[in-house]
């Protein structure tokens, strides 16, 4: 596997929203799910992850409650709120548009200009 990619500014929040949209997760689970769905291409720093979770909860995009983990340990689980789901849809649409625009710009050849 090649070198892991650096996170683009502002993408961690939307990745967390996406990971949680697939089902409630604890912080460590969020980290593992992002790494799993990115094919281990991304490495998330724990400090950034918990700061982002705190921020998203503060913004009302995710909610948390204490529960029991798969190994019967007490863990804090995060789930998406209605506002978070809406935000994820908007951000996904924006990201897809941006990706199309970038692909179009970067794929342009001289004779096409």
């Amino acid at each position: 596997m090649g070198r892991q990619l650096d996170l683009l500014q502002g993408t961690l929040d939307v990745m967390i929203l996406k990971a949680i949209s697939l089902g409630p997760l604890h912080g460590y689970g969020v980290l593992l799910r992002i790494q799993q769905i990115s094919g281990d291409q991304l490495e998330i720093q724990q400090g950034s992850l918990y700061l982002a979770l705190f921020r998203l909860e503060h913004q009302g995009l995710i909610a948390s409650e204490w529960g029991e983990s798969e190994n019967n340990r007490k863990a804090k689980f995060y789930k998406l709120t209605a506002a978070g789901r809406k935000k994820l849809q908007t951000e996904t649409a924006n990201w897809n548009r941006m990706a199309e625009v970038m692909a179009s710009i970067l794929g342009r050849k001289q004779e096409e200009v």
Partner: protein
Amino acid sequence: MSAATRLHTWWKALAHRSTLESEMEAELRFHIESYAADLVRNGLKPEEAMRLVQHMNERLHLYYEASKIFNALVMAGLLAIFYRRQKWYFGEHAVTSFYFLSFTLLLTIVKWPLWLALGAPVQSASAYILSLIFLLIALPYLWVTLRQLHGEGPWKTAAKSVLVYGGTQLTIIVTTLVSFGLAVLHTVLVR
């Protein structure tokens, strides 16, 4: 995103700081122990896993400890204002106290960038609000004490004292306000 949620988290940070901190500690502990268990499952020797996890644990807790030490020093500086207010005049005590306050000011300036660089959340903003309240209470005390000490007489000396202490206090207040504002911006707006 609702204002109610934001208010709720701020209130939790202000009024239930210890609960919030213990929850964060528990969350980080769970993270670290899960990570250690995964490492062992993936074939790492338990001792090696413990070493890695210990390293991670130290990093995660660094900002907690740094925050507590800095807060304690800043608060000690503020308490000194009350304790020594009867002795505050432009002389030996003033110079000592001035250096002490300058030191706490330096810590105030250093704390936030260091803290944010370490990726800390802003739940300890409550300590800053308290510091600010203490500082604002201290200012009139200083003026009254100076008037008592110097009477109506050496206005020049009194003015110098006010300038030195007032300037120091004002700098601390401004720094506190700016760093608090930056911290709020960092948490709420910056992604």
